[in-house]
């Protein structure tokens, strides 16, 4: 189970995002730089969240409250990142392949989202992934027949894409002042995070399945919004 589990889980969790990274982001200098800085932003938000967690000694094990401020901080830094990119956009556009393209912003948003997502995936899963190299196996509490590593890998993969689409939706929302989109991002972020509580639930049978299915549904809904936005952009141009 050791090496096989390790590679299976690693490729499940990071395979799709790495493929996108090497296929789309890595060839573009400005997108790589954007991704690194957005990863940095996400990291700051998480460090702040962990600092709060560290100080809030009483509620350290109450996940419902932990999620509240963690998600809020992430959204706050998403907004900061938007402000930063907004300022740098003219510079980024100068370097872009098609400086006038209206789709540049979507590309930036996607790369920034990938930075969030990849960093999220690495930070929250790499410890488990390394543990999966060991001889033992941890089973998922709500679905005792599946290993915890694999469930986490699937969730991480979904969350990575979640971050991408959230970033794209919220960028559209910020620039168009469309509060509905911002609200949607925040709500789905909370929804996705709270759904993962089901993973460790011992009372809900097959909780991990509900959690993953729910996240997939949210991801599909968000993706539809993104596609609609991009299509709007396209129609506006032509």
């Amino acid at each position: 189970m050791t090496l096989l589990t390790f590679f299976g889980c690693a490729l499940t969790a990071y395979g799709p995002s790495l493929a996108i990274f090497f296929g789309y982001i890595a060839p573009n200098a400005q997108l790589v730089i954007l991704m690194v800085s957005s990863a940095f932003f996400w990291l700051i938000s998480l460090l702040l969240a962990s600092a709060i967690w560290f100080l809030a000694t009483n509620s350290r094990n109450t996940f419902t409250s932990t999620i509240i401020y963690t998600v809020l901080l992430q959204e706050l830094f998403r907004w900061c990142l938007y402000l930063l990119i907004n300022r740098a956009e003219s510079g980024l556009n100068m370097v872009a392949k098609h400086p006038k393209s209206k789709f540049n912003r979507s590309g930036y948003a996607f790369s920034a989202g990938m930075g969030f997502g990849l960093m999220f995936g690495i930070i929250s899963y790499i410890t488990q992934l390394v543990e999966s190299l060991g001889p033992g196996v941890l089973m998922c509490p709500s679905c005792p027949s599946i290993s915890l590593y694999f469930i986490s890998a699937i969730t991480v993969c979904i969350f990575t894409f979640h971050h991408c689409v959230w970033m794209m939706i919220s960028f559209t929302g910020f620039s168009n002042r469309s509060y509905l989109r911002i609200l949607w991002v925040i709500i789905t972020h909370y929804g996705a995070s709270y759904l993962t509580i089901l993973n460790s639930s011992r009372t809900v049978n097959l909780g991990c399945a509900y959690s993953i299915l729910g996240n997939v549904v949210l991801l599909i809904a968000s993706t539809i919004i993104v596609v609609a936005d991009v299509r709007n952009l396209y129609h506006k141009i032509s």
Partner: protein
Amino acid sequence: MSSTDTAKTSSSGGHPSNDAQSSSTARQPDSEASPFADTTVGNAANEPIAAGAANITAGGSPGQQGADDSDGDDQPCQACGVFPARFQCSACQSVRYCSQECQASDWRIHYRECAEIVAAMKEEQEQENGDGTAAAVGQSQPRSRTSVPRLQQGQSGDAGHESLQDGQNDRPASDDPLGAEAANVRATANRPRRRPREPRRRPRLTAEQIAAFEEAERIADMKFYMLQVYKIIKPVVICICLSILWVKISMAGSDYRPTQSSYTVYTETPTSTVSQNILGSLANAGIIIAQIVIVTIIIVVLFKRGHIKVLIGFFMVVVAMLLGFMGYILLLNLIQVLRIPLDYVTMSFALWNFAATGLVSVFWKGPMWLQQVYLTVMSSLMAFSLTGLAEWTTWMLLALLVVWDLIAVLCPFGPLKILVESSRNQNQEVPALLYTVNAVWFMASPPNSILDREADKANEAIEFENLTSGQSNSHAFTQGHARATGRDGGSISSAGASSRNSGLDSTFAASGISRTSSSMALVPNSNRDDFTPIESRENIELRERQRSGPSPGRSYGPEDGNRQQSGPPRRSEDREERGEDPTGDDDDDDDGGGLKLGLGDFVFYSVLIARAAMFDWVTTMCCTVAVLTGMNATIFLLAIYQKALPALPISICFGMLFYFATRFALVPFLAVLGPSQIFI
């Protein structure tokens, strides 16, 4: 030349040459490319110099030229990416636009490649037309700031003025006269670092043109730095990954971990108190830093006195020791952890080959990729050997290094700064010295020959360069730098790349080169167990080289009046300055081929992350992102200040901050969330 209308030409299926012939008189046989032809045809016609009659005729329907082309719609608008892109650049016919506005806005980006293409076309044309008649004038575009290059030959004089006047009326028309200037400008922009042997004529520019030119420069700068960051991230990430790998392997139960240097006076024990640790590690780090400072000063003195060979010999010894000794330790680790059965004879044979190949490729010659591999491996080996330091000592050392880096690079009397300045003062000498110092110079020679050629025929050379440089401005820049720097190792490498014609490669090579130089620096570091100071020396050398590179750039700068105005020359100077310095640790320099990051920087980034890797994976990743972000920020500042900056402070501060924050807050936080599978 290029002025010919694309649509027409394309529809006729011919070369621009037809038009050119018809065109009234080509004033300049040599005239370079005309930038942009499409839209402005009408204006162009008016200009005396302006394109021939052919253009005018074509001009009647400027807009539609592109439409005729059968090529079709498969190519999107270059500027906005939109699809019906019915117009194409009449000069080069290689890009399409949906509207004149797009073309105009894209011109500042497109003009370089346009010039290259046009230059190629021009040659053909000239051949066809025979000498005299050929040159068309570029027509002008209203917006084209850069405008067509004027004749370089100098015929342009009268005509140029007239055209200028016209142009001033409407901006577009002005091109030709401007064009000449533009040609110069462009040339400068493309290969800022190159130094023509013959001084160029100074173009007269209108304020608008200057502004436009400056903007083009700004964009080129942006692109340049962007690409440099991109090129530099790769080796840094690889070096970091290797260091992590060595640490993880050696921690997997090996008996051969690197040990603490015998210079340290204090040994941490689990029972010692915090204050004992702080004072003891401060003493340890102080000793190491003092060594670095002394060595740096010695190097500076040697350099100022011109004892380059001593330095080189020293570096060679250091490199050999690093590769041999640290390679041996690493090999022992690998053998033990992976349980490889290996006898001593085989191992010593392999090790000998490894070290000898490294020496040859670093100091004499070898394939670019091999040099880069060796530099990266050497940096990671250095970092690995430094992981033997106790934890407190490591952090204290990094903190002190940040301070030293700041002092050495930024203070008025900082050794590195002095070094840079002295190299500048001795412009001519230093480069030569550096040149010899870099065993690498060999590679450089082909590029030099190219330069010479270019110098001989400035115009042709320009064209040639453009062609070779390929598409990206950055390439051109790097090549230019490299050439200018010439002697520097970096320049050398870039030159090699340019000879290959691969622009991108050249940039990469340049970074690689810089590395090589830095690698030399590294070598000293490697000795470092014994001599940390050595590192600084090496860095210095590197810096010196860099400087030398820049100096050529300058020489070139003065030649071009325009450039100086525009600032590329400045930049080159800055870069040269950057060639910098941070002594042991250091920084980025961009000179010759581009930004240079001292090997010392590589090493200490890796040391920080290797130290984090000894703790935890999450910490490692956090520190990596922090260090990379710090590096990006440094390069960003570099682009702003255009002078040598210490590369360590921002990255190391971020890295240390993130290390402790992660270690004490994030890791326990994740330890609670992880097993419960809560994802946030």
